[in-house]
């Protein structure tokens, strides 16, 4: 099972529709087409140290995707701000990770809008 993390903490799965799943090695030119019209896109992180998902999310948002966007995998609490800034709405983590890094460690970075140099530069 897994836990959904949002700014206000941990949640159980509450999405019942069909989600499009995107692997991190997707071809850049297939990304937008695959996601178009989806209610939710799940971008899979094969490991926390593989940062491709952040670029994929940002590109999807820049291309106009407005649906729900979820990072799925062993993303760690310290990456929560990165995920949110890249355009993800939420993160789906495995239960054992949620037990090791409890809710308050994720809420510690719910301030992801603060101190964002890149947002300041982009305007």
């Amino acid at each position, binding site marked *: 099972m897994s836990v959904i993390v949002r700014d206000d903490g941990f949640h159980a799965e509450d999405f019942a529709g069909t989600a499009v799943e995107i692997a991190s090695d997707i071809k850049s030119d297939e990304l937008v087409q695959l996601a178009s019209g989806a209610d939710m896109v799940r971008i899979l992180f094969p490991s926390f140290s593989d*940062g491709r998902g*952040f*670029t994929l999310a940002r590109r999807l948002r820049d291309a106009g995707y407005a649906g729900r966007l979820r990072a799925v995998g062993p993303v760690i609490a*310290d990456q929560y*701000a990165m995920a*949110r800034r890249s355009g993800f709405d939420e993160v789906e983590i495995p239960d054992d990770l949620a037990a090791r890094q409890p809710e308050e460690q994720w809420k*510690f970075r719910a301030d992801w809008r603060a*101190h964002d*140099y890149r947002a300041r*530069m982009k305007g």
Partner: protein
Amino acid sequence: MYEYSDFDEAFVRARAAQFRQQVERRLDGSLTEEEFRPLRLMNGLYLQLHAYMLRIAIPYGTLSAGQMRQLAMIAERWDEGYGHFTTRQNIQFNWPKLVDVPDIIDALADVQMHAIQTSGNTIRNTTTDVFAGAAADEIADPRPIAELIREWSTDHAEFQFLPRKFKIAITGTEADRAVIRAHDIGLQLVEKDGEIGLKVLVGGGLGRTPMLGQVIRDFLPVADLLPYLEAVISTYNLMGRRDNKYKARIKITVFENGLDAFKAAVEEEFARIRPTFSGVDQEILRVIAAQFAPPAFKNDPVDSYEAALSVDPVFRRWVARNITAHKVENHAIVTISLKEHGKTPGDATADQMRVMADLADRYGYGELRISHEQNVVLPHVAKADLPAVHAELLRAGLATANVGLLSDMICCPGMDYCALATARSIPVAENLATHFRDIGLEDEIGNLKIKISGCINACGHHHIGHIGILGLDRAGVENYQITLGGDAGPQAAIGDKTGPGFAYDEVVPAIERILRAYLALRESPAETFIDAFRRLGAAPFKEALYGENRDAA
């Protein structure tokens, strides 16, 4: 000099608090060692051979006297009383304890410093010309753009977990004292029709597969820089290899896909992303640039300086080696050599740091620089003050007059500190420096760049040394490979291997054979080693190294 904005100040404080929490979470088990590793690395903390090592950022190599004093304080309070200045224009402390590091980070924040992104698979400290803002030959001071890049790249959400580390260098002059061709991205300020823009190179790097960067854009408007960097790095983030860390740098991505295909992907992304930048970054750049305005230079006459030159041979020798022309006639650029013969290149004690800070305050408008060649520079000193500066450097053991000579070597920490090293490098540097001083040939040999790495990762830049020395491990025995003909400047070149390597105690005699051949073959003392090498090729030097009968291929 750049002063932190309220935004910078709030950021480094928040980041320090985050790191303190990360250390606590490592100690309580919330973070595994594997998870903690990239987090400590992106905050500058390495695990070395004997201890942790903290690498502190000195953005574009510029620091104030007050910041230098704080580094001295840190060296004494939390380390062993010295620090090591690196080819990345940073400083490393080799003996901090993990539990002390959050306090060190707070002490850095107190003087507007940090250790962010000095390691890890992130965008690293942007390096630049050590003489920026003082040199007579630059189009413009590159440091405002370096600071813009620092801010943009700091904690950039998309680029904290790249395939591999990412280094950007920028120069404001054709003379390229920043080795931009050996960086993941190299930037050169250029002028076209009265407008200043950037030549962009991509895919340079040393390491086990040395490559020189290729031009990807001849002229990029400054206003396009940040979106263009994003396009390059996000393309690399997706295209770069993650299956093999030795093939993960952008130089391999560019090489394997070809520059044209890589460039096409970059330009496509750039076209998408450019309109999302509002242009406010250019407003921020203007505010930054104003802070790099030169100081109000003194108008002191140079008579006393010229008098000292004519009567004091020690001063005269130091001026001849360690002084560079300044853009203002009655000023000079002072290079303080951290290459005393027989000492570790790039090391400075806390006392020496304080002497340099005091000199900067009294004679250098409060400013210091760290060069990628591991020396300290006072960028603006009135010539009238040079005799006093020299006298104080002499008292502190900092007046070694060897800039540009054989003993002014770049040298990595090697087996004495580094977990990756396969051979010692510091003792090789020490032996070379003392040997050539003792036989009295250092001055005769003149300008020469020797660079030493203690493993194939090439932190000592051996590929771009006129003479490069690479220490390897051959079945448990140190073996040193020699390369010739490399160069770091505008004529950048990767040196070629001469042939079989040499044992530890054969290195100094081998280098002496090469240099005696040079002295015998040069057209005149004005022909430097690298010029003679370019004229003659490698053959006579290989012959000197191996003898006529030995196959040196």
